């Protein structure tokens, strides 16, 4: 390959590094980061640019497993470029850690493959965007808990202060700050000299450092620090960042941590442990039983919705009330009901009917589905479940706009769902047969494979953890697992390769997880030692997707460790394809179909054989000791009410249920024959009696619709009418010797009979003869139209006098001569304005003297008016007064009175 020729030229940029990679390795990159080829980049430079964009890098980082991410984080705090040795030191510490050392090449390989790291092992470079994202900064503390380097921390420091520090730690002073900082850094990174330096530091000060060593590296100090802090600050072991804040420089922290960037590197994925082990037979049987229940439940659900399902909400989805009702009908909790509804929807068995009054209903596909053998029916559900992105688990949550998410409604898609489901099942498949996993260990494993970046959220609330929990419970409901363990047919769902590869490696096999394991293309490769002697057992939980990539195994990165010659750093040409973890569907549709069919074949013999008989008992119950053949079940479902469900079905016969069967067109003889045929035991006499009793009464009364009737005491006359051809259009039918029913309305019937030469009389509802009158057509009660007069009506006397009184009072108010004493700057006719105190005093005085006042007043609507009042009393902020304007006693809030003025004596004495 071309790598040999270009070997000497170390790449100087990511683009160059990519250029040196071969097609297989580029393909692996694009598979791992499919966002890079949408749209397809024009050249490698553009590819490199795109691979360095923030969004793409974030996406790539989020898809790393925990160890690869830790490796990237370590690179972010290492020098740029860093050597492999430096990185190993950061990951494994000064003392070394064989597990880390073993896992690191793999993790680095993953980073390289994803174009997050480039360069040879002596010059490893983390792409700049990733470095910015992962490097510690005061705003985004790194998960490593490390602070800035000495160089960064001293950036703004005065040269004099730096020289002081240099002197304090016993270094020779230099001529500029840059070299001073460099010598300080050199000191801090030299383990021996540093140890010697720290040996002189008193215990109290070391304790301070200990508090900061694992982060966060920032501490608060007062303006006048204690001596033990002073000492640290003097020697540069703590550096000030802002007034009152100090930071532990990265070099110092690393020294104290014995070189480790992470307190707890996690090179090995946590093992999925089994909480219980059942025999495979029990697991398969339980799962099969549950699978049958799943089919029955879906059938029951759609049968329940057969005659018009629930309405579709305007925003889409099922109302909470309908979900509740469905849950009650299925006798399951609401979240489980939501699961069944969503499952049927995902399998295309139910949908909205799209009518004006939109309702949910079964689709034609449902009828086809019903015709399938049970195992195939299950396979259809299982496949729909595996690949669906809709997640019933979030039903009842609230979306970003605080709207409740409803079952069958919008906003239920979680694109990670199929991948998590597949992953969880794959983890279960890795356990020995019949072992039920400890749910927490499954969740821990998933969290390791896809850690959350940023502050570690350990709660259960992240989506992947919730999805995994739902997967475990849904798999049980669907019968993919039984007693918590993956069943044989559940295993088959994962595809042919899954079971073989998985069980070979066992649950605790170390590996970097599905995201990064490159070495083992299948279980068979797992144990083979790589060229560097590194034994790389394959992870036990590999995704089966590898099976169609027959590449020879090749550990991606190990060579440089042993061969420092300028071997091209990128993964070797034959680098195995990496698992495209982000791929939403872990199996291609065709593969999935094959796998599902295989699962169905495994399941089929386990499903209970439908029975063709029931046991009838004298307490009017029938017990079907197992699932029934469909026609039998359908018929019994009509003839009796289901009392209890499960492995068996208990039916109870009631008069109503028997009547229902008769209404459905069965005769009593049919029912007897049916019961005799399908009962293993003689039909109990009370049951036979019940059927006869109901049948005897059934249809005794007949109900039909007629528009009119003809009644006549003379049979012969009615015969004559019926025989008359002209009566054909009237739709006559003889109900009794003396009664004909007609489909025509009474008017038409009368006309028709008259036309035939008869003289019929109309009859009222009470049976009286209706005397026909010429125009008896009436409207419903109506009021006569109101006249629209030209002007207002002539006023009557009381109205007039009231009007005049009002006019006069207003006039009085407007024209009353004011007392000159009143300080009233307002012009005549303007309402007075006085201060609140003045108003109160004037009004109180008026109460005592009985004077009449002129006030300006603002009513509750804010309209100003003027009134003439004679105050009676003032209390609690209100004035009670006789209002001359309104001619009654009223109460005014004082604060609404804008002003007050006294009236001249003569005016007050002469009210209208």
């Amino acid at each position, binding site marked *: 390959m071309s790598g040999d020729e270009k070997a000497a030229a170390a790449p100087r940029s990511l683009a160059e590094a990519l250029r040196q990679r071969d097609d297989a390795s580029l393909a692996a990159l694009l598979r791992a980061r499919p966002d890079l080829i949408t749209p397809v980049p024009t050249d490698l430079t553009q590819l490199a640019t795109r691979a360095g964009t923030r969004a793409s890098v974030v996406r790539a980082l989020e898809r790393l497993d925990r160890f690869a991410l830790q490796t990237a984080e370590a690179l972010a705090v290492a020098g740029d470029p860093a050597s492999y040795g430096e990185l190993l030191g950061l990951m494994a510490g000064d003392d070394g850690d064989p597990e880390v050392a073993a896992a690191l090449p793999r993790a680095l390989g993953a980073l390289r493959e994803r174009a997050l790291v480039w360069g040879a092992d002596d010059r490893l470079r983390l792409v700049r965007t990733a470095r910015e994202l992962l490097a510690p900064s005061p705003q985004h503390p790194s998960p490593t808990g490390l602070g800035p380097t000495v160089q960064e921390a001293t950036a703004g420091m005065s040269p004099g202060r730096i020289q002081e520090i240099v002197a304090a730690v016993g270094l020779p002073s230099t001529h500029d700050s840059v070299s001073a900082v460099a010598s300080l850094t050199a000191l801090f990174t030299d383990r021996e000299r540093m140890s010697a330096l720290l040996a002189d530091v008193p215990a109290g000060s070391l304790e301070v450092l200990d508090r900061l060593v694992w982060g966060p590296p920032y501490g608060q100090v007062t303006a006048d620090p204690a001596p033990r802090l002073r000492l640290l600050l003097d020697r540069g072991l703590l550096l000030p960042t802002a007034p009152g804040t100090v930071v532990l420089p990265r070099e110092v922290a690393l020294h104290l941590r014995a070189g480790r960037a992470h307190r707890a590197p996690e090179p090995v994925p946590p093992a999925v442990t089994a909480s219980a082990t059942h025999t495979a037979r029990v697991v398969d049987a339980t799962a099969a039983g549950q699978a049958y229940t799943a089919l029955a439940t879906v059938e029951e659900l759609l049968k329940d919705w057969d005659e018009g399902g629930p309405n579709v909400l305007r925003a889409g989805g099922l109302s909470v009330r309908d979900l509740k009702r469905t849950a009650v009908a299925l006798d399951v909790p609401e979240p489980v009901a939501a699961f069944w509804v969503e499952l049927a929807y995902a399998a295309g068995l139910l949908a909205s009917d799209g009518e004006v009054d939109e309702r949910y209903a079964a689709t034609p596909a449902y009828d086809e589905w019903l015709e399938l053998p049970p195992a195939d029916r299950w396979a259809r559900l299982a496949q729909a479940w595996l690949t669906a992105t809709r997640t019933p688990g979030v039903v009842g949550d609230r979306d970003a706009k605080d709207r409740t998410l409803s079952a069958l409604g919008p906003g239920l898609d979680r694109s990670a769902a199929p991948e998590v489901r597949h992953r969880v099942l794959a983890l279960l498949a890795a356990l020995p047969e019949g072992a039920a996993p400890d749910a927490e260990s499954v969740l821990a494993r998933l969290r390791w494979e896809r850690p959350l970046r940023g502050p570690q959220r350990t709660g259960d609330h992240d989506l992947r953890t919730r999805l995994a929990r739902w997967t475990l419970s849904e798999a049980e409901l669907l019968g993919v697992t039984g007693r918590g363990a993956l069943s044989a047919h559940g295993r088959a769902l994962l595809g042919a390769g899954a079971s073989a590869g998985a069980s070979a490696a066992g649950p605790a096999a170390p590996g970097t997880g599905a995201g990064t394991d490159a070495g083992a293309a299948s279980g068979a490769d797992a144990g083979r030692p790589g060229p560097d002697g590194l034994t790389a057992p394959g992870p036990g939980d590999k995704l089966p997707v590898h099976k169609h990539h027959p590449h020879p195994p090749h550990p991606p990165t190990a060579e440089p460790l042993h061969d420092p010659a300028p071997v091209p750093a990128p993964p070797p040409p034959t680098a195995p394809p990496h698992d495209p973890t982000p791929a939403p569907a872990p199996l291609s549709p065709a593969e999935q179909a094959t796998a599902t069919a295989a699962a169905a074949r495994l399941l089929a013999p386990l499903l209970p054989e439908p029975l063709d008989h029931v046991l009838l*008992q004298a307490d009017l119950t029938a017990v079907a000791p197992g699932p029934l053949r469909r026609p039998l079940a359908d018929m019994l479902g009509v003839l009796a009410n289901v009392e209890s469900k499960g492995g068996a079905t208990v039916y109870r016969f009631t008069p109503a249920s028997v009547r229902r069967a008769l209404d459905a067109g069965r005769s009593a003889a049919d029912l007897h024959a049916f019961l005799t045929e399908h009962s293993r035991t003689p039909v109990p006499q*009370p049951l036979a009696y019940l059927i006869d009793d109901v049948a005897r009464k059934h249809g005794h009364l007949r109900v039909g619709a007629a528009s009119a009737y003809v009644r006549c005491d003379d049979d012969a006359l009615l015969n004559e009418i019926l025989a008359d051809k002209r009566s054909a259009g009237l739709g006559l039918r003889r109900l009794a010797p003396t009664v004909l029913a007609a489909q025509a309305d009474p008017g038409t019937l009368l006309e028709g009979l008259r036309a035939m030469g008869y003289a019929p009389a109309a009859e009222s509802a009470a049976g009286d003869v209706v005397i026909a009158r010429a125009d008896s057509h009436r409207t419903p009660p109506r009021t006569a139209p109101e006249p629209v007069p030209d002007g207002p009506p002539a006023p009557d006397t009381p109205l007039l006098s009231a009007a005049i009184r009002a006019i006069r009072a207003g006039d009085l108010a407007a024209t009353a001569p004011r007392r000159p004493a009143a300080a009233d700057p307002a012009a005549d006719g303007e309402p007075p304005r006085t201060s609140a105190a003045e108003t109160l005093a004037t009004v109180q005085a008026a109460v005592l003297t009985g004077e009449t006042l002129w006030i300006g007043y603002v009513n509750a609507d804010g309209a100003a008016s003027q009134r003439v009042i004679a105050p009676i009393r003032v209390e609690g902020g209100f004035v009670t007064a006789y209002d001359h304007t309104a001619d009654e006693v009223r109460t005014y809030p004082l604060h609404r009175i804008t002003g007050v003025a006294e009236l001249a004596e003569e005016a007050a004495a002469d009210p209208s």
Partner: protein
Amino acid sequence: MNGPLIVQSDKTLLLEVDHEQADDCRRAIAPFAELERAPEHIHTYRVTPLGLWNARAAGHDAEQVVDALVQYSRYPVPHALLVDIAETMDRYGRLTLSKHPAHGLVLTTTDRPVLEEVLKSKRVAPLVGARIDPDTVAVHPSERGQIKQTLLKLGWPAEDLAGYVDGEAHPIDLREDGWKLRPYQKQAVENFWHGGSGVVVLPCGAGKTLVGAGSMAQAKSTTLILVTNTVSARQWKHELVKRTSLTEDEIGEYSGTKKEIRPVTIATYQVLTTRRKGVYPHLELFDSRDWGLIVYDEVHLLPAPVFKFTADLQARRRLGLTATLVREDGRESDVFSLIGPKRFDAPWKEIEAQGYIAPADCVEVRVNLTDAERLAYATAETEEKYRFCATTATKRKVTEAIVRRFAGQQILVIGQYIDQLDELGEHLNAPVIKGETSNAQREKLFDAFREGEINVLVVSKVANFSIDLPEATVAVQVSGTFGSRQEEAQRLGRVLRPKADGHQAHFYSVVARDTIDQDFAAHRQRFLAEQGYAYRIMDADELLAGEA
């Protein structure tokens, strides 16, 4: 997988009786599942939290329960159900009631959050005293029953280790001369004694009184027996004198007429629940002696006020006896929580198979109303409808025909409505026993009936319970208390006492067709049908024609 048991999702268990493993399975599930229905082919058991907790109390653990289900189940048992059972059983015993040397009755926990949870409940707060330490709280001794009942409702049943008072000792022995306790009676006494307190369910006529006597002989202490009425009290006394070492002087009667308190005292529910000026004056009976055992006869009739008194008696041993633990008021669970769990239950058909109760032929005779009656029925007021159809004249003819058919045998005619009974008495020329009949007169008539001097006796519902009529072989029911299931069972019980010659008993229920009488009859028969008594249905015309 071909077990006899089918586990349903509603936690009922269906047991196929004809299966070869049915008996083993029945034994395995009996400790935790209640027999709900026992018709001919498939018996229904129900797994309830109460049943599971009782099983825990009796020393069974969740693993045994799960094993029993898995072993005998025909189909795989849903995982969720097994988990649920284990979780339910795990709730028992987190709280215990025990005697503390210093603080008296205390509630302790092994799981502190549970104690915190129950103490937060408003209903528990008034029942407990001071917190002694984080895991222990004092309980007022008088609230022992109340707190157990409340905790049960909260789903955290308390294990009661506080024990029982022995009561005042009094020598009582069974005098087994010429008779012995039957095996199932012995078993019932043992189960009861082992469990401390509880309810024994036996069919009518299967000798519940002897279970009471056997328990008294175990307790050997003063005993208070609560019965439904005075006649029943006399019969208890009679039986005790006959079967035990007790003499007439040692047994007191505490009823409306007599107020004797003796080492063994028989009181009626009625006198206990008599209320004067808002207080129950006869309540002190419970405290009048240091009773070592309290027997509740016909516990399904326990009146509501007695429930409350019983709650205060948790330190004494309690034995409930009944044939039909079905209450139309649905308070069965109160009986269980206050008197104690079901300690023994024998299906009627099983006892019948052992020959201790007579086999019975149950027939429902359907009579047609005449056209005139139908019209009248249709127009009757709702509350009068049942009375109207239940007392139709046609029933009289049918009853007469049945009585004629079994002429010479001992026949009881049972009904609800006095005027109907009077009329029947007149036509059948038989004496009528009703509410107004004096006790002396009743006993005289019963004696005459027993001696065979009278063949036909017409009785109202006063004779529903505990009247011992050994030779009644035919019962004709013409009307009843609406749809009461236990009344129907009790009435059938009148004819179930084993006959000297082992012949079959007959139970006729005369029902008016197409009326609510028929609906009520269907409901009434449900209990017996579930016990495996298959009713035959006959047309009245058929019966009358057969006679002609």
